[in-house]
């Protein structure tokens, strides 16, 4: 959310080493001209314009007036436009994330949580297994019996993707945005094809993590939040009683 505050200071994304107002933007949140038949608030991706008035590009401020801003007030920290404070939140919690995830990885490997619970088993590593899980998720059919005690293959892939692909990507692309670190580790610029590319990737990866969190929370709520929360913290999971038909 502090990241969206920072994005709002320049709601355009580029690809390459540089990118500013006169350069071509891959994505842009902006206000159109209704007199020209354009939407008031819109997201422009390439040459496509998606009307998003009220949410992206143009949204209501705390007085209820429509103002031009990338993400709306309810999605940013602080809710009002204040880049300096947004950056303070962002970098403080970036450090919190670095320390807590370092601890998480250390403990998860040491207790073999990753190897035992997260790596898919041989039978789970198949298109059939993943496809079946995907279909079950769409129909909101949750595993029953002993299967519910373990992560299913789709769940494992999602966790591994977040932990070993998205989280490192967010960290590395974030570090590439620092002009100080670019001097010390110029290979970061080669890796991502430039600072502006890194900024775009940082935004995309963070967006996917937000989507993951939303879906994950929804799944927890739908699968029985109390039992799920207890199992996350203590590891004790009570098998829900099977419904008698």
């Amino acid at each position, binding site marked *: *959310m502090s990241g969206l505050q*920072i*994005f709002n*200071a*320049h709601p*355009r994304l*580029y690809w390459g*080493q*540089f*990118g*500013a*107002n*006169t*350069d071509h933007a891959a994505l842009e949140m902006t206000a159109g001209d209704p007199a020209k038949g354009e939407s008031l608030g819109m997201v422009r991706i390439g040459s496509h314009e998606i009307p998003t008035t009220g949410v992206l590009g143009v949204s209501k401020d705390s007085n209820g007036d429509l103002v031009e801003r990338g993400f709306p*007030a*309810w999605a940013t*920290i*602080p*809710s*009002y436009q*204040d*880049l*300096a*404070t947004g*950056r*303070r*939140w962002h*970098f*403080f919690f*970036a*450090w919190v994330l670095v320390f807590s995830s370092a601890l998480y990885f250390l403990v998860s490997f040491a207790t073999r949580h990753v190897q035992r619970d997260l790596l898919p088993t041989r039978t789970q590593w198949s298109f059939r297994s993943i496809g079946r899980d995907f279909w079950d998720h769409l129909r909101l059919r949750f595993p029953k019996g002993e299967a519910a005690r373990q992560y299913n293959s789709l769940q494992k892939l999602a966790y591994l993707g977040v932990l070993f692909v998205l989280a490192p990507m967010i960290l590395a692309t974030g570090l590439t*945005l*620092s*002009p*100080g*670190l*670019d*001097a*010390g*580790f*110029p290979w970061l*610029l080669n890796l991502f094809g430039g*600072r*502006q590319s890194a*900024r775009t990737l940082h935004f995309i990866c963070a967006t996917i993590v937000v989507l993951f969190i939303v879906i994950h929370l929804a799944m927890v709520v739908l699968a029985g939040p109390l039992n799920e929360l207890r199992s996350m913290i203590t590891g004790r999971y009570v098998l829900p009683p099977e419904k008698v038909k």
Partner: protein
Amino acid sequence: MTSRILTRRQMLLRGTTALGGLLVAGCDRLSNSPSFRGMLESAEGLSYRAQRLLVGHNALAREFKESDLSPVFRSNGTSDPDTPGYNALAADDFRQWRLKIDGLVARPQELSLDQLRARASRTQITRHDCVEGWSAIGKWTGVPLSALLTFAGLNASARYIVFYCADTLEMGADPYYESIDLIDAFHPQTILAYELNGTRLPVANGAPLRLRVERQLGYKHAKYIMRIQAVQDIDHIGGGKGGFWEDRGYEWYAGI
């Protein structure tokens, strides 16, 4: 049956919206609480020390090729100081302009633009990163700051270099100013630039002289420099935070 599901859905939606509203309001209150702000700001010291530890003091920012230059180098902040004093200097092609170097130096200086141009120069094609998020690549030519500080005889007690500018960004506020530590002041790419992309520095980009401190964000690169002062601490200058934007909540160390 349908109506019951709808109401439940509506309730969930309303609950989420209310919860979100509370969260946003709570974060806004925290942002304005001095003790919480103090906690958030403690991250700056950590970032500064981590970068100084991990990045060599003379590690160079990437230098690019002519073909990498931004087609247009965006001007930001003040595009023209437009004060009577500055306009008079500009009308005369800055012939009467003098760069003052004073403070904790053995030999205070007053240097003309021609005197600066006569000194050994450095040209570098670097990327300029604005705190807002955009970047532009430009070619800069100027005098290394380290050479000027050595020339003026920097005192051993000096810890910061302060830059005083001709422009005022806010009505009624003091003129723009900035400060950097000696590590960045003596960095080989830290120059006082008088040329951009092979021509005289335009007024929009800080004529006659601007700072390039390549491992930090754009607001550190003071434009329209009038005076350079070597000091022991920055607590009593301006708002006490070391720069115009720093006094308004931004990080003094802008390598991040």
